[in-house]
């Protein structure tokens, strides 16, 4: 039995879904997987999984291991739960043959709820920002966090869904506060939300504080991160970040609370080239690559903006690895793309107005002024490119001094190749 935590070392879209799918198939270091635990973000995640028989699903809230029979999903207290998006996802999964996803789902009662009021406020604010938009997905994830920070006791939580009276009070207060700030919001009435969320509570198991500990004792667990470390709320390039902790910090907290600190091996996921969906610094962006490598699962989002492609940026990846406290192994995806092209380069340093920088030192969590200054530097930085002489796998392993343990040549589990051993972490005495 081995727990594995998976994060994306870029801006998202590296292939966490396909890696979690592979781990959940039982091929990983922990053997058969009991459950996938989500530990950050919300329904804006878009983790693509394709089965060998050609079925495709974009996992948003359900764990990307759901195609494997019996693998459960647990939404931890750090997850932002959107019951309206969830049922749409469940319905799609049923259409591709997975009919018991809700039966295999548990939700921590303390998890925050994302509601239509949060989404409406999110969109109203992004419209007001105009060209200076932050690249939000428009689903209200940031609003959910912001409201909970300001009004922790009034924030609707998953556990409230089973209590119509409390839920109605909380939703009405939420709607009134947001409308007071932003003007009337195009959102449905409170009663309609109470009914829908109540139906959610009747179909999904709401779990207490002790549940995760039991889950961890019951079998191997995969912690599935959302977004990417370079979008982290504290270590990302402010303000082009997500309102979510995308490093291993939440996993560390959950394991410690469950009495199993340090028991997950840490796997970083990386593409052989770089991508960024939405605005913000992207030093190695290359318009010719954006044109040449359109993403089959990402287009121009109305709220999020363009999908951009660039070269492998080892400076940024090194920064991500340091910012998340180190990784035990790497999963390198899109090897098939790299193998078919000779125009992919690798960035080993930045040119900052004549000064060469190979490393960006992470700062302490919480200093957003520092992160904003870093963002300004990155907008000015020019990439210093080299060729990928040794091939992507060796280049990455040598430059980053981290073993590449898994290679991905395509979207299904059959396209995965084990390249190294992801050792389990000893349980500290």
């Amino acid at each position, binding site marked *: *039995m081995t727990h594995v935590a998976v994060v994306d070392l870029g801006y*998202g879209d590296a292939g966490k879904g396909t890696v979690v799918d592979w781990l959940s198939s039982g091929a990983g270091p922990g053997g*058969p997987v*009991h459950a996938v635990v989500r530990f950050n973000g919300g*329904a*804006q*995640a*878009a983790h693509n999984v394709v089965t060998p028989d050609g079925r495709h699903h*974009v996992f*948003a809230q359900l764990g990307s291991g759901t195609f494997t029979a*019996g693998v*459960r999903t647990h939404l931890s207290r750090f997850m932002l739960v959107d*019951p*309206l*998006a*969830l*049922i*749409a*996802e*469940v*319905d*799609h999964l*049923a259409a591709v043959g997975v*009919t*018991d*996803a*809700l*039966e*295999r*789902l*548990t939700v921590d009662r303390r998890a925050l709820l994302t509601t*239509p009021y949060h989404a409406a406020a999110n969109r109203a604010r992004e419209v007001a920002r105009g060209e200076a938009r932050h*690249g939000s*997905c428009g*689903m209200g994830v940031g609003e959910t966090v912001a409201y909970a920070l300001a009004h922790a006791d009034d924030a609707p939580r998953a556990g409230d869904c089973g209590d119509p009276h409390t839920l109605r009070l909380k939703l009405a207060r939420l709607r009134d506060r947001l409308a007071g700030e932003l003007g009337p919001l195009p959102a*449905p009435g409170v009663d*309609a939300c109470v*009914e*829908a969320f*109540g*139906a*959610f509570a*009747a*179909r*999904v*198991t*709401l779990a207490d504080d002790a549940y995760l500990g*039991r889950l961890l*004792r*019951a*079998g191997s667990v995969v912690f599935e991160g*959302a*977004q990417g470390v370079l*979008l982290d709320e504290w270590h990302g390039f402010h303000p082009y970040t997500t309102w979510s902790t995308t490093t291993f910090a939440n996993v560390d907290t959950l394991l410690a609370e469950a009495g199993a600190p340090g028991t997950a091996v840490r796997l970083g996921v990386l593409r052989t080239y770089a991508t960024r*969906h*939405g605005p913000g610094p992207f030093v190695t962006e290359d318009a010719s690559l954006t044109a040449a490598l359109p993403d089959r699962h990402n*287009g121009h*989002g109305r*709220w*999020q903006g363009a999908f951009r492609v660039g070269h492998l940026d080892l400076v940024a990846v090194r920064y991500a690895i340091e910012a998340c406290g180190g990784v035990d192994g790497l999963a390198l995806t899109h090897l098939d793309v790299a193998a078919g092209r000779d125009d992919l380069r690798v960035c080993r340093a930045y040119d900052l107005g004549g000064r060469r920088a190979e490393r960006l030192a992470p700062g302490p969590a919480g200093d957003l002024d520092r992160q904003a200054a870093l963002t300004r530097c990155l907008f000015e930085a020019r990439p210093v490119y080299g060729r990928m002489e040794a091939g992507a796998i060796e280049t990455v392993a040598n430059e980053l001094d981290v073993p590449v343990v898994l290679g991905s040549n395509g979207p299904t589990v059959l396209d995965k190749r084990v390249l190294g051993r992801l050792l389990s972490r000893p349980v500290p005495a």
Partner: protein
Amino acid sequence: MGSGRWSTDVYDAAERYRAARGTSAFAYSDHGATTVHPGLNPFGVRARESRDSAEHPASLAIAVLFDVTGSMNMVPRVLQTKLPELLGLLLRKGYAAHPQILFGAIGDATCDRVPLQIGQFESDNRMDDDLARIVLEGGGGGQKTESYELAMYFMARHTSIDCLERHGRRGYLFMIGDEMPYPRVRAGEVRSIIGDRLSEHIAVEAIVAELTTRYDVYYILPEGTAHAGDRQVLDRWRGLLGQNVIQLDDLDAVCETVALTVGLGEDAIDLDEGLDHLREYGSGAGRSVSRALAAIGAGHGGGTNSLVPADRVLRL
């Protein structure tokens, strides 16, 4: 990063949740189910099978059946949430290398709607799904008897287990409850609930004798239940199963107790090691488990299943 691909109209969502198959993980019965789930129905079943496979060359059948009637109060619900840990515990502590676990539930054939529910032997977490589908009765008779004899009849005659049939080693059967069996397996109940035609009733002593040739059978009595510590209940089970009656004062330790018993039987551990594991878990059940299992540990000497190949004993 994503794009918010999935969205539903709020007016639509409630209806879609209601229409969605499935219920919460422990809530087949919470959502009004009053009949046995098709996957757990013993009627017409030739045999529940525990089989070797390439992956599990030396399977070990372990069945856990618990009383789901009202006299047990919250016990079945706690068991439903605790028992999923059993497989992981057996494997992690090396108590068994290839366990295959079956969950089932015992009611009262004289008055319950769901007198017997029997899942499948599984070697991965699919048995949890069976657990979730168990209907909790909550009816319960007031006469200190439940249809344990019917469950024992099913396990004796309608299971086929490779550990016995290929390797000559009995499986393990645990019954968790707080009441006594009826004195006879009644032909009419067997016919209506399991589907077999018997020419006569079978005395419970006879079915126990038959069952114990196939399984090491244990009865676990959780304390704090309606009849816990009831001398009449304890004496009845001791008369049937001898020392294999375990009083458990901490229901949270039910998996540890089952796992420890298997570990002792498999000779994978001795009692002291097992009790260390319990303390490690922080269970207060050590004393009662120790008391209950001391006899078993001693009685087994080298273990009833003493022919454990070395490669099946994983020592941590």
